[in-house]
Structures are given as structure tokens and as C-alpha cells.
């Protein structure tokens, strides 16, 4: 199976977030970056499918030059090659615009399967995979925890709300968005890291793809959430704070 995994580089989970001077995005200077969590699970699923059934795993990402180390990380874990859509102002695009870029890069590859994470940890829209299916004319399923290849296509385990699941059969080629937690993630080995340096990374300048990415939705302003609830912050050393909290839970909230 030829599998394309669409991945995204996002700010590291514990990164200190500041809003930029224009109030339209985050101040990216000094941010640390990482592979989006559910994309890491999508990559893991792809690598396991390749180990079972053979084939090729291609990682695909869009972003500026800083995405390089994230691509190398995916290659070090075992992806065979990478496609990098070089695009400086990703955050000015809407979900449809990003998906159009990715679809343009996927089409000529004719993959059997396109995987992507359920949602990005920065924008959290969870739309890329579903839109890709529409643009590529492929069937899809989202929130997938497990993928089995069958004679006629795939059987996937989809997560529903409140602890329910569902099996879905679908033909290939198909698009799946992968939920976190279905597999155990692997680490890159030293050998993997060494090999990654020699693997192919094809850079596609965004302009060459000639995609209409004029946004239909614009992120106008970014703000800090306003506090809606009055939270009592309890100061002091751990011991003092603990004692004060227990007092309050007992006599003020009356829940102890």
C-alpha cells in the first residue's frame, strides 16, 4: 500500500503563548515547535500498515522552512520520503485553502490511503482530512483508532461519543483521520535518525501549485479569553495552600 500521511508542525504543548503586535496571530519568535500529536498517531498507523502489508509511507506537510526538523523526525521514525509544500503564511489560509494545497500534492501520487491526525493542537478545527476526501473524491472516515486491511478494502474502528465505537468498512483508496491513543508511538532510533538524512524531501513552492487559496473565512483577531468565573487562587507554600484549601472546602464550599 502506498500511504500518504499529512502532518502539521504546531507550537510545543507547554509553549508560552503571546499575541503578536497586530493582534492577528501568535508571536512566533522564540516558540518551540513539535509534530502535532494526533498526526504522530497517524504516522504510527501508517508505519504499522507498511510493516504488515508492505508499500511506501510518504509524509506531506505545508509550512515555512521551520517545518524541516519535523519532517526529519517523521523520516527518522520510518517514513520513506517527504513532500514539503513551502508556504510562508499558512495561518492566513482557511481550512479549505490548506486542504487544496495538500490535495494538489497528493493527486499525482495516486496513493491507496491518505492518513492525517484528527485535529491540530493549535487551530483545533479537525477539518483537513474530511475536506481532503471531498477534494480527492474519496470515501473517508474520521476519529479512527484502528485500521485493518481486508480483501475488499479496509475495516476501521471509529470512536463515537460517550465511550461508544463502530466498525466501518470502506474501499480503498480512502482518507482516514486518526484519533490519538490507538497505538503506542515509536521513538526514532539512532539508525533511523542517520538514515533520515539521506531520504528524499521534495520541496514544492506554494506558488508552483497555482491553487486558488483566497480565503472564504478570515481570522480577524486573536485575543486572550476573558475570565468568566471568579476563581479563588490560594497563595502560600504548598503546606499553607493545602491547609487553606481544605478549610475552604470544608467551611466555605461545604464539600468535605
Amino acid at each position: 500500500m502506498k500511504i500518504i500521511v499529512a502532518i502539521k508542525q504546531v507550537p510545543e504543548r507547554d509553549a508560552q503563548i503571546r499575541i503578536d503586535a497586530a493582534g492577528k496571530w501568535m508571536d512566533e519568535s522564540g516558540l518551540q515547535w513539535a509534530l502535532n500529536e494526533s498526526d504522530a498517531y497517524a504516522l504510527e498507523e501508517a508505519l504499522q500498515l507498511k510493516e504488515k502489508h508492505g508499500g511506501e509511507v510518504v509524509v506531506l506537510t505545508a509550512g515555512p522552512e521551520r517545518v524541516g526538523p519535523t519532517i526529519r523526525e517523521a523520516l527518522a521514525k520510518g517514513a520513506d520520503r517527504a513532500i514539503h509544500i513551502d508556504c510562508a503564511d499558512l495561518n492566513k489560509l482557511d481550512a479549505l485553502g490548506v486542504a487544496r494545497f495538500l490535495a494538489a500534492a497528493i493527486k499525482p501520487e495516486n496513493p491507496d490511503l491518505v492518513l492525517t491526525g484528527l485535529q491540530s493542537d493549535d487551530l483545533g478545527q479537525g477539518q483537513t482530512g474530511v475536506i481532503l476526501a471531498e477534494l480527492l473524491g474519496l470515501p473517508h472516515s474520521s476519529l479512527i483508532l484502528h485500521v485493518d486491511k481486508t480483501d475488499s478494502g479496509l475495516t476501521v474502528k471509529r470512536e463515537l461519543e460517550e465511550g461508544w465505537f463502530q466498525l466501518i468498512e470502506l474501499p480503498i483508496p480512502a482518507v482516514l483521520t486518526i484519533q490519538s491513543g490507538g497505538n503506542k508511538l515509536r521513538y526514532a532510533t539512532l539508525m533511523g535518525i542517520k538514515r533520515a538524512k539521506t531520504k528524499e524531501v521534495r520541496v514544492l513552492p506554494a506558488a508552483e501549485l497555482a491553487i486558488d487559496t483566497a480565503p472564504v473565512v478570515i481570522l480577524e483577531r486573536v485575543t486572550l479569553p476573558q475570565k468568566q468565573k471568579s476563581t479563588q487562587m490560594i497563595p502560600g507554600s504548598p503546606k499553607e495552600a493545602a491547609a487553606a484549601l481544605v478549610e475552604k472546602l470544608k467551611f466555605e464550599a461545604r464539600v468535605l
Partner: protein
Amino acid sequence: MSGVWVVIEDKDGRVSRASWEAVAAGQKLAALTGQPVNAAVLGAQTEALAAEVASKALGSVVRIEHPLLAVYTAEGFTLALQQFIEQESPTQVVFPHTYQVRDYAPKLAARFGQALICDVTALADGPVFTRQLMQGRLNGSYRPTGNGPCFVSVQAGAFRHEDIIIADVQPGSSAVSVFTPAIEPAQIRTRPSERFRGAEQTVDLGAAQRIVGVGRGIKDAANLPMIQALATALGAELGASRPICDLGWLAMERQIGSSGQTIAPKLYFALGISGAIQHLVGIKGSQCIVAINKDPNAPIFEAADYGIIGDLMEVVPALTEAVKAAQQ
């Protein structure tokens, strides 16, 4: 082109709470833009559901009905709504932001050259829609600029279904009509099975009166006994945010949040949990929430009644001792 349409989802044959909240959002949007608000239900047999929706004062209610809509599929629902939207040309289409909507609404919007504005928490004149970024640490204001219909999904709990404007009408006075889409079996390529539960539940967090929840902040599974000691001292059940269960540190059945259990205890401790929306929706019903986190900007503090900024490794043992002392 006119009108706001709300797409209704059912839960066990009744209009789901999230759908009523979407109706409330739709009414607010309609009021801002001076338009009527209408509702659509989809399925193979939608009469009862449509009648329930029609008990509210909406412009009109449409039953989008077809045998191939008996079971949800992204392709079936997208086709049916595409045809209906082409006929009706709404200004805005509002959905509840459920797992099902996430599975097809982005596809439907893309078919119209639009992008879904998803998981919306507030709306204002413009219209401008607010949604959360960076796991709740930032808000973003989004403005649609396209010419086609605007597709919006609203976050659970962001709009109150108690706020639905019920005009002075008799129940069932909204006009109900039927729309029959053209769908061929071959157009639906996915075959879903009956839904099933995961492993049998042995803990019922939903009924627990006190719960101690842990998140990534504990860093290592080796620190779990320290958390368990606090839970034992409190007589509380242990719960966790999703990453802890994904890592296998606690059983999946202890997961709290939109993909796990919804809790409503008297007392909930969120330890080292940053407070992503998926977790927050699961703890909303808690009477008293205590958050302990080293990051003063963690969104969990927004939801908490009491907060301590500090290192779990220091605060939790101190708290266990203080709880024990208070019980003597």
C-alpha cells in the same frame, strides 16, 4: 438567499441537547441578521423528531427523508443536505459540533467552496464568530468573506437551550414539510456497523461524589500512587484526562471528557490537567472544582472554583496530609 437553517441531530429518537443549543445559537444569529430561523431533520423516518422540533416557534421545519439516511454516513448526509441547500439557498447553516457533524460538515462546506467555522463559542454582529485556539488558551474572531452560505458549528454548552425564544404559539404551529433528496446506493461507499461499547465498565464515574482527576502534569506513571493516596484520603474515585489513558497509565474507563465519561460530583480535583475543551465539557456538572497546575495560564483555572499554582509533587502530598488532619 435568505434564512438561517439549523440541522438537528437526535439522541435515542429525541432532539439532542446539543441540537437545542444549536437552535438557540441559530435564533441569536437570526436576530442579528433580521432573518427567520428554520430547522432540518434528516433520516428515514423523521416525523416524530420533526414534531418535537416544531413545538418551538421556528419559521419552518423540513424533514429531509430517504431510506438511505436511516443510518448515518458522511456521503449520504452530505448529498442530502447539498441538494436541500441548493434549493433553499440559506444565508447560514448551523450545526451542533458533535462527532457526527465533524465527520461530514467540513465536506459539505467544501462542496460549496466554503469552510466550516467550527466549534463556535460566541457570535456577534457582523456576524463575527468566536472559537478557541491553542487548546483554549486563545480566542479567535472569524469573519466569513465568501459569497455562498456560511456553515457554522457550535460548541456544546456555549449556547444555553434554556435561552431558546419561545414565542406565544401553540405547540406544533411551525409548518412541517418533507424534502426527498435523490440518493443512489452506489453513492455511499462506507458501510457502518452497529455501534458497540468498549470493555465493560467497572467504575461509574458518573455517579461518584468525589473524583480526583490527573493529567499530563504528573509526568510519570510512577507518580500515580501519590495521586491515589490523595483519592483514598478523600474517599474519591480516580479519573484522568485523555492523554493519561492513551498512554495506558490508567484504564480507558477512567477517562473524563467528551470521548469518555461525563461527571457531576460534589468535588472534583483537576491535578496537572491543562483544561482542553474536550475535558472541560466532561466536568461542567461538578459542584466544586479545584485545579492545581504549575502553569498560571492553564485554561483549567478558568473553570475552577479554587486554584493553587504549584508543583504537584509538593502540593499533592501536603494536601493529602491536610485532608487526613481535617478528618481527625
